[in-house]
């Protein structure tokens, strides 16, 4: 296959193999132990300090410090919330769509996109809380058995926001963490290698054992929940990540259109527009991809991962931004055109205020920062320049802020009555809060850069060629006392290629050794899984069932609360206004689906399991790096290790590098 046609071409450095990918990512955090990291972290902490001050002042004085007024009741607080959640949705949608569509180029960027989504959602999550007059009773927005005999007002977007953000964080963290499990296992194994190295050196009389090395390995071990990379585990992992991606997709669309349908459902000029939800989604997608692109460039540069995040990744992100930028431009142009063509006087007045009013800067911010810069990406050379892509990505995020500001503030500051027009100006404390939330994002990001694999090791390896070196991993063999006299768990065979492993499975499967065959490896082993029989794909069904049950339960709760238990007339709206309960119900449904997926994955894989006989296989730490292991676990009286060893030694091709008896 020629390079130009291969969809995977250019997505990985030419010399990369399993081991080098793992080492590049697990070793990358060492590069953050630099002065630049500390300077950046100090800056982020400074902003966090500003955040703390702004929040303290807010608690003392109330939301008036943001200069919110009537009619501009939603100002920087909701603008910033929408902006952050837009970035989060854009980033999560990118990751989910790429995984569902099986795009190979997700390998370098999906972790970064998911991390962006979580951090942006964390920054967003604070806003609905702090913009309440009394933030300490934020739990009043949630339905819980209270002494007030009241329900939250489920028709209110405040409740939607509360449910949405909890669901978003739940699904997003689920997707991110499930994706991280094998990577944590890799980090655990590298750290355990370091522990074993220290033990060896101490035994030889040089060096000393450090407790911190062991603690680090055990911390990663706990986070990995005892991931072993068994082929059935991998198959379920693939199902789980795809299921979670599907749920994330539903959640993002529901959340973004829910918020914007709420605006367009009102009668205010500038909001009352059927195109608004689409404009909203396109603009936030652009900002999410923009921030993801900027962070991708940052991660690549800061962690030296040029071989894993290649120019092609950057160029593809640039193309995506160009496409979304064009979609966004189309939406804005259509809105303006339709206002001019058939808008009423109020609609045209809003247009004039947007383009030339007090806050016209917001509109021109969109044009100059979001819509124009992406046009640079028509030029192929600029698409490949990391700096340009990062700057344009950040500019897109700034432009998106202009979009949310224009949409909320310009519309709210005037409605139909001249008497209800009231000028609004951004207060210093509002801006300080915004800066502080950026500080929170950056501080968490920098901590993530230092401790977590920012590129998915497992996903990258799936698209890598392995370069078998034919050398056994050299793990110390169990002593004779451990294997000869004690009961055996099984026999293991080490391979350096998934193909050889599959051949061996095929050869051994037909014969009855009184043993259960399992394979372990650093990536999903599809051929071996085919031969061993894939686990039943019940996981997506479980997730769907949980999601539907969650949806139905929440909808029933809303209907019961507002239709029977606490009938409350809100402006003559119908008693059963199920439409307004759709958004939180869908969000809650996806949260239930996500939780069910994660729990089902762990339960079916019988995880967490920190201590397992498979971990005692000599050289097993490399099962998370570049080795494949075939194990025959004793299961019955016919189990005879000598016969299995003989069979393994007589394999016609792809003989194992090492065959070992594994004690129980």
């Amino acid at each position, binding site marked *: 296959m020629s390079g130009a046609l291969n969809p995977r071409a250019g997505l990985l450095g030419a010399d990369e193999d399993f081991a080098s990918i793992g080492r590049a990512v697990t070793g990358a955090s060492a590069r953050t132990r630099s002065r630049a990291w500390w300077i950046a972290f100090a800056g982020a902490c400074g902003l966090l300090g500003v955040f703390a001050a702004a929040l303290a002042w807010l608690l003392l004085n109330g939301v008036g410090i943001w200069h919110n007024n009537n009619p501009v009741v939603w100002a920087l607080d909701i603008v910033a919330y929408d902006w952050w959640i837009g970035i989060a949705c854009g980033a999560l949608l990118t990751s989910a769509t790429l995984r569902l569509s099986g795009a190979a180029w997700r390998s370098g960027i999906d972790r970064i996109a998911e991390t962006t989504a979580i951090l942006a959602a964390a920054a967003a999550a604070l806003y609905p809380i702090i913009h309440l007059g009394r933030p300490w009773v934020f739990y009043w927005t949630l339905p*819980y*058995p209270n002494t007030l005999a009241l329900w939250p007002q489920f028709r209110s977007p405040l409740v939607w926001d509360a449910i949405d953000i909890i669901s978003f964080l739940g699904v997003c963290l689920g997707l991110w963490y499930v994706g991280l499990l094998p990577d944590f296992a890799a980090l655990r194994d590298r750290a355990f290698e370091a522990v074993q190295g220290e033990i060896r050196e101490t035994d030889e009389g040089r060096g000393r054992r450090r407790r911190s090395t062991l603690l680090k390995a*055990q911390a990663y*071990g706990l986070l990995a929940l005892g991931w072993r990379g068994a082929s059935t585990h991998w198959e379920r992992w693939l199902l789980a990540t795809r299921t979670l991606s599907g749920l994330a997709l539903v959640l993002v669309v529901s959340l973004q259109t829910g918020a914007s349908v709420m605006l367009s459902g009102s009668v205010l000029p500038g909001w009352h527009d059927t195109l608004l939800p689409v404009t909203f989604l396109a603009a936030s997608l652009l900002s999410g991809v923009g921030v993801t692109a900027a962070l991708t460039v940052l991660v690549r540069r800061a962690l030296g991962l040029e071989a894993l995040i290649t120019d092609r990744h950057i160029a593809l992100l640039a193309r995506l931004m160009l496409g979304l930028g064009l979609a966004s431009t189309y939406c804005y142009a259509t809105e303006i055109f339709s206002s001019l063509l058939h808008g009423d006087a109020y609609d045209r007045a809003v247009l004039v205020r947007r383009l030339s009013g007090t806050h016209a800067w917001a509109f021109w911010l969109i044009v100059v920062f979001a819509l124009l810069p992406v046009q640079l990406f028509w030029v192929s050379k600029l698409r490949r320049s990391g700096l340009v892509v990062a700057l344009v990505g950040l500019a897109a995020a700034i432009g998106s802020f202009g979009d949310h500001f224009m949409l909320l503030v310009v519309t709210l500051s005037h409605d139909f009555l001249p008497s209800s027009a009231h000028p609004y100006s951004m207060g210093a404390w509002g801006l300080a809060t915004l800066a502080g939330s950026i500080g929170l994002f950056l501080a968490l990001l920098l901590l993530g850069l230092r401790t977590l694999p920012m590129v998915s090791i497992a996903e990258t390896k799936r698209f890598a060629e392995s370069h078998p070196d034919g050398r056994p991993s050299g793990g110390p063999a169990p002593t004779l006392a451990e294997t000869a006299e004690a009961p055996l768990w099984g026999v293991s065979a080490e391979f350096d290629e998934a193909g050889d492993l599959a051949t061996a499975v095929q050869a051994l499967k037909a014969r009855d050794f009184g043993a259960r065959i399992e394979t372990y490896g650093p990536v999903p082993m599809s051929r071996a899984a085919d031969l061993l029989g894939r686990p039943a794909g019940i996981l997506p069904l479980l997730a769907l069932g949980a999601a539907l049950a969650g949806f139905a339960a929440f909808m029933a709760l809303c209907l019961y609360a507002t239709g029977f238990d606490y009938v409350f007339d809100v402006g003559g709206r119908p008693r059963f206004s199920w439409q307004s309960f759709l958004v939180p119900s869908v969000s809650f449904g996806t949260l239930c689906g996500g939780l069910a997926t994660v729990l089902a994955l762990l339960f079916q894989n019988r995880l967490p399991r*920190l201590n397992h006989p498979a971990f005692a296989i000599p050289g097993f730490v490399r099962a998370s790096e570049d080795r494949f292991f075939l194990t025959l676990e004793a299961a019955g009286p016919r189990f005879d290790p000598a016969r299995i060893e003989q069979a393994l030694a007589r394999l016609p091709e792809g003989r194992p590098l090492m065959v070992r008896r594994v004690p129980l």
Partner: protein
Amino acid sequence: MRQLFAPGADALLRLALLTGAACLAALPVVGAGLVRSSYVTGVGVAPAQPVPFSHKHHAGELKIDCRYCHTTVETQATAGIPPTHTCMTCHTQIWSGSDMLEPVRASYAKDQPLVWTRLNKLPGYVYYNHAVHVTNGIGCSTCHGSVTDMQLTYRANAFEMSFCLDCHRNPEKYVRPKDQILNMTWTPPANQATLGPELVHQYHIRGGERLTECGICHR
């Protein structure tokens, strides 16, 4: 060291996870129990007062009318705390030398009111009117409990919003005929199901719809 974790690690992890889950589940239960407990609500707790006044003795055994002391209960928002003069109408004549009543006499002599510890206090944003309730079929004991049985006075009900709403949603369950308002031992009669709606009609109470509007209590 063959494995990173010892065989016991799994048991410990499971124990930790279960403990965490149990704590997480217990937290709302404990919290909900705590806010409803008399430790927080003060129900049934008789605080120390300057004089150990007994409602049971005065209103129960001696059958002094509630309104003898709480004079404004039928006409004003507050029922009224009696001035020392009210006590002294009798206690200048009986028990006039009692040590227990020394603070009352001192208050009378110095012309300074007794400072009672308040039992029932509503938040500032709740507008409650005694007159509206007692002239429309809600008796004293519905909120204050059987005061004539209280040796020392304590709070009978936690005035949480659910307590108010319980009646505002279903006034017909609680309304009494006019002659039963001061009856401290009133319980709904057997025919409350038919009597209640009739009384609601008589008192011109506009049912749950009107009574559960926010502005009825919060203005």
